[in-house]
């Protein structure tokens, strides 16, 4: 259970030495209670207090790192139920399942699909984060063989080993020792042996039970076996059950600080129909899944799911934005066209992408509008004729280009008069409305 500020205060040294950066122990205690400070800021806290407070001040959903190295994924640490309250912290991982009954060619193709899944969207590199190797055959040798293939072909990709057999687990996990793998399939029946295997290979444990009561009992048991890092599954497979369990788990962790369910959740979204499967995976993205397992990774499906994850995990208070400046697209010269837009990331990346598609080098003037899109910024009075004129004057672009022509977005055609008035000697050209018409527009312009 979470402790109040006063309860925490009682455990502190009460010397008011200020080494934590706060004026008094009480002030520090209050910040700890609000999770706005961490205990390690106080150098003098007793070991006993550390133990009590450490338990209480730990984030409600335990942080877990899946994988290692550059492709490692952070999970957990969530603090709210709704994204408008506060940013969701760690985006879920998408994991592609490979079953050990699948033919070699399929296995190879799936590994390739993961390795080639990277897509750049709005400046972020997105990809299928991991591979789940499932022991469908029940045969440890088969699982080990697939594991070896994955370890060789995709050594950096985080891996889940999915089996309930400790022997099969050992055969597979030995290929991922110390690599932040997850051993999923720990149940009431096999917990002791599985915990041993997981510990030997420094793996996180994936526990599985039917229902949340059994699940909480099992996580406590596993913890008693000396394993701290877990991901949890209450057995939900149908969409309605996934929504229910994910919601109740998140509520228990956040509203009641119920530690036995304070772990990242793993959801299995696999369906026969790969397109339909994306809707179930989307439920995991929107509603508290930390790992979402899928059975296929078509490029169109990846793009849609990555985009959803990006949307749900953006900061609701601060739109994603880019720096105000004149960007060079290609290698522009003094004659190259000059285009203006706002600094909302999405707007910038769409427009710069289309200029690149045009293969016409250009100057792209990106104006600070607090991260708003063109029309929103215009409606909010941040993308006005006067402000644009000012920005162009101060940007120094007049020294870079020999012409005096500014291309503006079609949606704000209405601004051309004011800009020409305020920006002496300049001519305004109204571009197309939608960015996908930019390539043709630019090609005709320089032709």
């Amino acid at each position, binding site marked *: 259970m979470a402790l109040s500020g006063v309860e925490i205060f009682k455990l502190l040294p009460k010397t008011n030495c200020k080494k934590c950066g706060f004026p008094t122990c009480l002030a520090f205690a209050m910040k700890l209670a609000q999770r706005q400070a961490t205990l390690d800021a106080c150098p003098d806290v007793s070991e006993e207090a550390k133990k009590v407070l450490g338990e209480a001040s730990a984030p409600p959903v335990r942080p877990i790192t899946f994988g290692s190295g550059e492709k490692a994924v952070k999970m957990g640490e969530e603090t709210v139920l709704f994204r*408008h309250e506060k940013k969701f912290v760690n985006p879920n991982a998408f994991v592609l399942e490979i079953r050990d009954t699948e033919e070699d060619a399929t296995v190879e193709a799936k590994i390739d699909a993961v390795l080639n899944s990277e897509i750049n969207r709005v400046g972020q590199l997105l990809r299928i984060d991991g591979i789940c190797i499932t022991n469908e055959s029940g045969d440890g040798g088969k699982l080990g063989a697939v594991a070896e293939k994955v370890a060789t072909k995709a050594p950096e990709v985080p891996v889940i080993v999915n089996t309930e057999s400790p022997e099969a687990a050992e055969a597979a996990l030995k290929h991922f020792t110390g690599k932040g793998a997850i051993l999923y399939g720990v149940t009431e029946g096999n917990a002791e042996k599985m915990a041993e295997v997981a510990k030997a290979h420094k793996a996180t444990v994936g526990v599985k039970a039917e229902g949340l009561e059994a699940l909480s009992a099992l996580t406590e048991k596993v913890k008693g076996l000396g394993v701290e890092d877990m991901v949890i599954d209450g057995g939900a497979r149908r969409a309605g059950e996934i929504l229910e369990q994910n919601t109740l788990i998140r509520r228990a962790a956040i509203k009641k600080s119920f530690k036995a369910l304070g772990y990242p959740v793993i959801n299995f979204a696999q369906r026969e129909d790969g397109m339909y499967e994306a*809707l179930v995976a989307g439920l995991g993205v929107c509603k508290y899944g930390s790992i979402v397992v899928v059975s296929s990774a078509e490029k169109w499906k990846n793009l849609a799911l990555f985009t959803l994850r990006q949307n749900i995990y953006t900061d609701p208070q601060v739109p994603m934005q880019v720096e105000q400046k004149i960007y060079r697209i290609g290698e522009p010269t003094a004659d190259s066209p000059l285009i203006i837009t706002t600094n909302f990331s999405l707007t910038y990346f769409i427009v710069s992408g289309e200029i690149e598609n045009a293969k016409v080098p250009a100057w792209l003037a990106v104006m600070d509008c607090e991260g708003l899109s063109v029309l929103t910024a215009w409606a909010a009075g941040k993308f006005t004729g006067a402000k644009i004129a000012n920005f162009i004057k101060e940007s120094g672009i007049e020294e870079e280009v020999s012409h005096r022509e500014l291309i503006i977005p079609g949606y704000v055609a209405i601004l051309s008069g004011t800009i020409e008035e305020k920006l002496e000697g300049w001519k305004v050209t109204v571009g197309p409305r939608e960015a996908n018409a930019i390539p043709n527009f630019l090609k005709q312009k320089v032709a």
Partner: protein
Amino acid sequence: MGYEAVKESFSGGVFPVRIGKEKEEVFGGENTLPFHKFEGEVPNRPLIAYEIQDVAPEEWPETVRTVYEGVSEDPVKWARHCEEELGARAIALRLVGTHPDGKDLTAEEAVKTVTSVLEAVKAPVIILGSNHVEKDSEVLPRVAEAAKGYNCVIGKAQEANYKTIAAAAMANDHKLIAMSELDINLSKQLNILLTQMGFAKEKLITDPMCSALGYGLEYTYSVMERIRLAALAQNDEVMQPPMLGDVGMYVWKIKEVQAPEEVLPEWGSVEERGILWEALTATSLMLAGAELLIMRHPKAVEMVEKFVDELI
């Protein structure tokens, strides 16, 4: 310490809205968060309406235009096709042809289209203007009158034209969509204005404004979640009408549903991409609280219905 489920029950609920004449449909009516059947009542599934237009859909991208080839030149054929072949539970007829920048069709022409579609189908009909503030306040009152007795949904009333449109919907016994721009306060204010002029809040549908996956979806999603929490937890009556997700129109104009695979191989097949884009936008908004959805692609609708089956 043992596990205890943290369940929530609310004092407020969403109004159920019943539409249609020959065949009725009801949506809304729950007293819990979207699909939270484990702690409340969810008596009705969301209603998905197939979008059709008064003029041929020349601007729709190929993926969704071609599925209506041969019927989409004629709104009556198109509506029948949706009802009879695709099993549409509702039809959303958008009068885009009336837009002054387009064909600029007159209110008389709109009335003709509307009456012939109403006669052709049994399913409830949602009648939408062209989203031109002035033209809608000219056209929508006329079609609302012509549709009297059919218990339709009329849309959309906005801050700038709500009076005329709401008056017409009220006089002719229709339900009304109230649209504002992605802001819970604006949405609440418009609903208040409407109820102040005597429009029953139980006959409203709130449209907080849609946006497509990747193009502002997170804003619509969060505004919907906030409206729904206000309705349930604060028992705020003006926030209790069901919500609309006008999905098809926002999805089928973005680059992701149009760019061919030859140009962007890393995005994969354009057909599947487009269909999934529409379906995933719809399901995400349903999880945030939308109960009425307007969609275009039959495969997308089919998948969303299947997803609802799995949720309910």
